[in-house]
Every structure is written in structure tokens, then in C-alpha cells.
């Protein structure tokens, strides 16, 4: 078990606006970290900071033992963005090839990895279709395939299950658990509670602060409730009570 993500006393923001405050996080290899919180809470900002797209305003972020930001390390991270960042006039295969090349993969690796990555998301039969003819769900799956393509040590998935039907979601989760068992680390953001329950570690963000974090079982017993959803609601109420006392 090696430490993959280490965030200490992170404060992040744009200009004078502070978006994240006092974030501390330790994730080991094989963990699936679920980042939950309402939209606008700062999830995507935290993800961007962990990837090194943004420099921490205060505090430090270390990924795979390297202080971030670090451009080269991005080769070891598979990223799926919240919006489907795809080239619509290219086919799915061309998109995969292009992003694979950008990630630094060789032709031989691409040949091997494209069928594997698209197999997970059931896109093998539509590989040579233009992306502009894809449905919303198919685009989402292609984005996920691009993230999986380079067999990265760390997977960062921003809202991966939006627009994906339940059957395929189960299949994707099975694959994510298999990857975690292999020692890969996964960070995903979501506001779907079913996804949160599948995670091995949860961090709840609200208003730029981590209001609760721990394994789902620990959290449920800590808050004396029956589900992750109730933990989230309770933690939110506690935060509101705390701020109104100030």
C-alpha cells in the first residue's frame, strides 16, 4: 500500500475568491475515493488541483510521490472530464488514437489497449462511427474509454456515470473494482448516492469545506444513521448549525 494522493492544508481559489479551504486527504493505492457534494461545492476545483492544472494557493498536493503541479506526471493519470471533450468530426477510434498519442502511448500499445478500453464500455461495434453520430451516453462511455486507455496508475473521473444506463453502470463498477484490486487508484466525483456507496473512501464537500470523510461504514456508524445519503444530509445540517453559531 503506497500513498498515491496526499493533500495537506489545501486552500484554493481564483484571484481573491476562495473556493476550497482546509482540505486534507490521504489516499493509498487500491482505494476508490468518492468525492460527493452539491454542484458548485468545489469538487472540480479539487480534482483540477490534484491533477496539477491549478497551482495550490496554500498547502501542498503530492501525487505518486511527486509534488504537483507536474506536467510529466499527467502521463500516469487517466482523466475523464465532466463535459465530453471529444472531436466530433473524428471517429471514436481516431479520438482514442489521438488522445492516446497525446498521453505518450506507442502504436503497439494503442493497438493492444483500444479493444480493451472500448470493451469495458461496450463500444467495440461503434468504433468507426463519427462521434457526432453518437448518443449522449455513448459519448460519456467513449470519454471513459479514453481515460482507461493508457492503463494509468491513477484514474480521475469527473461525474463518470451521468447518462449511463444501470446495466452498463454495474459493468463499469465491476471493472473499477477489478482495477482497484490490481492496485490502481480511482478518484471520482459524483452526486449519485449509489456511486458513493461503492467507494472505499468518501469525502463530502460542501461550500468549499470537507464536512465529512472516511470509509462509508465508519461514516454510517459515526453519524448513527442507516445510509450514506443520511450521513451527507446530517453532515450538511451540522455544518449549517455550526456556521449559524459563529
Amino acid at each position, binding site marked *: 500500500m503506497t500513498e498515491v494522493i496526499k493533500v495537506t492544508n489545501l486552500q484554493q481559489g481564483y484571484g481573491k475568491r476562495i473556493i476550497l479551504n482546509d482540505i486534507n486527504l490521504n489516499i493509498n493505492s487500491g482505494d476508490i475515493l468518492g468525492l460527493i457534494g452539491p454542484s458548485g461545492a468545489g469538487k472540480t476545483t479539487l480534482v483540477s488541483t490534484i491533477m496539477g492544472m491549478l497551482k495550490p494557493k496554500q498547502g501542498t498536493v503530492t501525487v505518486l510521490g511527486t509534488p504537483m503541479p507536474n506536467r510529466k506526471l499527467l502521463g500516469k493519470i487517466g482523466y475523464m472530464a465532466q463535459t465530453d471533450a*471529444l472531436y466530433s468530426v473524428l471517429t471514436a477510434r481516431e479520438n482514442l488514437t489521438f488522445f492516446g498519442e497525446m498521453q505518450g502511448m506507442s502504436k503497439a500499445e494503442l493497438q493492444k489497449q483500444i479493444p480493451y478500453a472500448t470493451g469495458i464500455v461496450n463500444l467495440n461495434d461503434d468504433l468507426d462511427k463519427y462521434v457526432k453520430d453518437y448518443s449522449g451516453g455513448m459519448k460519456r462511455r467513449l470519454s471513459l474509454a479514453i481515460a482507461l486507455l493508457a492503463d494509468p496508475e491513477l484514474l480521475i473521473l469527473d461525474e463518470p456515470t451521468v447518462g449511463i444506463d444501470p446495466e452498463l453502470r454495474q459493468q463499469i463498477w465491476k471493472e473499477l473494482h477489478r482495477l482497484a484490486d490490481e492496485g490502481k487508484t480511482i478518484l471520482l466525483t459524483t452526486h449519485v448516492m449509489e456511486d458513493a456507496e461503492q467507494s472505499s473512501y468518501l469525502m463530502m464537500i460542501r461550500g468549499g469545506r470537507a464536512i465529512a470523510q472516511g470509509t462509508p461504514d465508519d461514516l454510517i456508524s459515526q453519524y448513527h444513521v442507516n445510509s450514506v445519503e443520511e450521513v451527507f444530509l446530517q453532515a450538511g445540517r451540522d455544518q449549517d448549525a455550526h456556521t449559524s453559531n459563529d
Partner: protein
Amino acid sequence: MRTLAMIRRVFREMLRDKRTLALMFIAPLFILSLVYFLFQGNTTTTASLATRNVDSSMVTAIKNKHIKIHDVNSDKSVKTIIREHDYAGMLSQNGDKLTLTLANTDQSKSAVIKQSLQAAQAKLKGQAAATTIKTQAQALQKMQAALGAATHTPVNATTNVGNLKAKLGSTSYTTKTHYLYGSKDSTFFNTLLPIMMGFVVFFFVFLISGIALLRERTTGTLYRLLATPVKRGEIISGYLCGYGTFAFIQTLLIVLFTMYVFKIQILGSIWLVLLINVLLAMVALTLGLLISTFASSEFQMIQFIPIVAIPQIFFAGIIPISSLPGWLQPVSYIMPLYYGASSMSAVVQKGVGFMDVLPNLSILLLFAAVFLVLNLLTMRKYRQV
């Protein structure tokens, strides 16, 4: 490696977008053809001129293929006659005084009439001079004959008269005009062409590259790209090489088109013409990429055209820079098209060599370099390393 992948992607996207391809390759030829036909027009201008009480010798002298004479007898006012018949001008004579009234709604027609009138006056004066000389010569001849009869030495004298006559006969000068640049077929189009060529390349490359990068920003693919270990320089150079190739093909097409369809003679080296255009395209490309940073939609990108692209053409030499108001002249020095177009004009029309346009080319290169650095800096907004 990554740059190559970028170039391949740009090629694929361009080749599949038939409309954009057409815009890049056919639209410039269309515009140039339009300009060509528009500025060929002025050689066929004919002006209608009304004449009243004008001597017939004068009228015949004025007549040429650009003037249509209408003899008028009515005693209505000049204004009314011109208005009623839509003449370009009216010439009336009172004693030996000529009065020319020009409608002046079309300055080129006014110019034709003024020129023809001047020519006619010169012609008549010449004729008059010739007749006087002729009569004097006849008188001289008579005197000579009388003298000859008196002195009985006619041989020498007649040869002298013959010489004199030969000299007098050659009063009608023939003029031969030499053109330093171009020929008698040169029209304003010849002046306009190098400038238009530069502008067309600049405009389309600016627009297409700017919108391409803008689309990449708005769809999020630029952010996604920067989430890989790619260097910002690799993205920009991929764009430069990818769209640069299309700009080069476009330039080649325009140059060949003007040479073989318009039969415009390029006095200087064709390679130099291509080089200037490619440099101009590079400036347009880097500027387009940079400007797209400040636009959040395609519509906003279009809004930059009247601010960034159109003013360039005014300072590119269509209106000679020296004839601009003094305070406005320095503005041309910040216009990339000024350097491109003036070099193009010099190469196409005067046939100057590489060393003569080198200063201008260096300035274009400097423009491209500055825009390039600014591009790299603005991409920091997306990824801070």
C-alpha cells in the same frame, strides 16, 4: 511525435469539413475575381457631352471613342439640359469663349471630358500653328522663286526650301509612352492585386485558425488535451504546421490563379511572393489563436473582424500611406498587413529582390513571435505548468 499527432488531427478535421475547405480555397479566388472585374471597368467609360453653338472643328477635335457628342439647340438653361438628358457635361460657346459644365456625379466621366477637351484644344492649336507655318512657307517659296528668277541661281535655293519644308512638315509629334512598371493595359487592379492577395490570405487564415482554437476551448477539448503531458508549445506548433499547410496551399492557389487566369505578370521571384504570403499567414494564424482567447463564442470571434482585420486593409497601401493625415500615418506601422502588402507590391510590381524586403519580413517574423509567446502565456490559464 505529439506535434505530428496534432497536425494529423488538424488535417483530418479540415479535410472532413468541406464548407471550411471551400471557404479557404474558393472564397479568396471568388473575391479576387470580383475585384478583377470591378476594376477592369474604367477603360470602357464613355461620357456623354452636350454641345451648343460650338465650332464644328472643335467638336471634331473632341470626338474620340470615350466621348459621345450630342448637339443641342434648345435655349434652356445648362442645368436643365444636363438634368433632362442625364449628360455627363455640356460645352457651350459664346464668341471665342468656351464654357464647360460638368454634372460631376461620376468623377471618372468628368475626367474623361476634361482630358478630351484639353486634347482637343492642343490639337486645334497645333493645326493652327501648322497652317501658319505652311502659309509662311508658301510665301517664302514664292519669294525664293522670284529671287531665283532674278539671280539665276535656283538650284541651291530650292534645295534649301525643300529642307525647310521637310522640317516644317514634321510639326505633328508622335508620342511614345514608356512604362517603368506594368504596361498600357495596367489598371488599378494591378496595384490592388498584391494588396488584396495579402489581405485575403491574412483574413481567411485569421478567421479559420481563430475559430478552430475557439471551438477547442468551448468544447473542452483544449482542457482535456492539457490534462495529458503535452507541452503547450507542442499544441501551438501543431496548429501552426497544420493550418500553416492549408494557408500555404491557399497562397499557392491564389498566386497561380492570378498568374494564369488574370495573366498578371509577377516581376519579382514567385518564391519571394510565396514566402511573404506564408509569413503573413503565420502572423494571421498566431493572431487568430490569440484573439480567440478573448472570445467566448464564434459570434464574438466574428466581432473581432471589424476591429482587427478590416482596418488592416486601409493601411495596406490601397490608399498611399503618404496621402494619409500625418497623425494617422504611424498607425500603419502597427499593422502587420502593411509590411506584408508593401513587400508584395514591391515584388510583384517592381521586381525587387530578397534583400530589399528583408526588413519587412523580419518585422512580420517579429509579429508572429510576439503573438506566439502571448499564446503560450494565455494557455497558462488552463494549466499552470
